[in-house]
């Protein structure tokens, strides 16, 4: 196995994510990637419309720096450490192709059917991306955290609220994939 170039297996990635959380805890911070969205709204002047955005966002600058780092990390990994193809279970790849016409599993990192820049002119694709993002942003703040804040940080601290949130994440995800995808994509 070529660790630099091949995809990292779960037993490499999971412990490294835990390490990320411990480094941030040691720095006196918390691991959570969605609170940045609130910070960005505040910087953009959202405090004029809701007190929810009136907080000392300067204390959150460190987390925006982490975001900048994540962008750079994505650049480095995609340019120098990956062939940018994700191979999934062949049954799932076949099902995606048969049911939804998404043929790119094993050939791409994200399906170009949804993420190719030229498809942004397609109102259907545009709507999916905006609504998907909207639900993530709204839901993350309503639930007080996302995958990193609840599924990793909160559950590591044995927080019942985080368990409820993660159960919610999966209820929502399963409804979307099993009940709504067939309606949306076929």
């Amino acid at each position, binding site marked *: 196995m070529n660790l630099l170039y091949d995809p990292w297996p779960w037993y490499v990635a999971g412990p490294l994510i835990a390490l990320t959380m411990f480094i941030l805890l040691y720095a006196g911070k918390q691991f959570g990637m969605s609170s940045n969205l609130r910070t960005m709204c505040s910087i953009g002047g959202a405090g004029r419309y809701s007190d929810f955005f009136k907080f000392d966002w300067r204390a959150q600058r460190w987390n925006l720096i982490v975001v900048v780092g994540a962008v750079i*990390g*994505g650049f480095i990994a995609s340019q120098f450490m990956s062939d940018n193809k994700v191979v*999934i279970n062949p049954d799932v790849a076949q099902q995606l192709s048969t049911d939804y016409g998404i043929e790119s599993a094993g050939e791409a990192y*994200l399906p170009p059917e949804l993420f190719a820049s030229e498809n942004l002119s397609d109102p259907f694709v545009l709507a999916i991306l905006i609504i*998907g993002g909207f*639900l993530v942003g709204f839901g*993350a703040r*309503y639930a*007080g955290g996302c995958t990193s804040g609840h599924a990793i940080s909160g559950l590591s601290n044995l927080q019942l609220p985080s368990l409820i949130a993660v159960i919610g994440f999966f209820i929502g995800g399963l409804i*979307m994939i099993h009940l709504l995808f067939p309606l949306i994509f076929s």
Partner: protein
Amino acid sequence: MKYISYLTIGIFFGIIMYKSEAASWFRIYEMFQFESFHMYGIIGSALAIGVIGVQIIKKYKIKAIGGNKMNLHPKTKSVARYLIGGIIFGLGWALAGACPGPMYVLVGAGYYSILVVIGGALLGTFVYGLVKNKLPH
């Protein structure tokens, strides 16, 4: 100097997300189809180590840098906000195939359509701020 550390942590995290394929739409879809152990392995192993580590921190009262207390606050008790908010988040996670961390990683990887998803997420956050007081928490 401090900012260099946070930048490094971010780069480290971004590489992990991309290299583990946790930032791939395909992996999220496959996870919700229960057709691969990969994503469950990532979350599960991170969590197993996380739980043990946090217990050790608490037991030995390990301090953060500079002697400060670790940022391990209990979360406010409630069911409605976590369950409803969680379901809304899950719907979006599956539809966009990305949660907030990977969204930023994908910008760096050159998938510029993800900027539309981030725009949607900012809008969702903003609207939550507007209607927050009318929602059950």
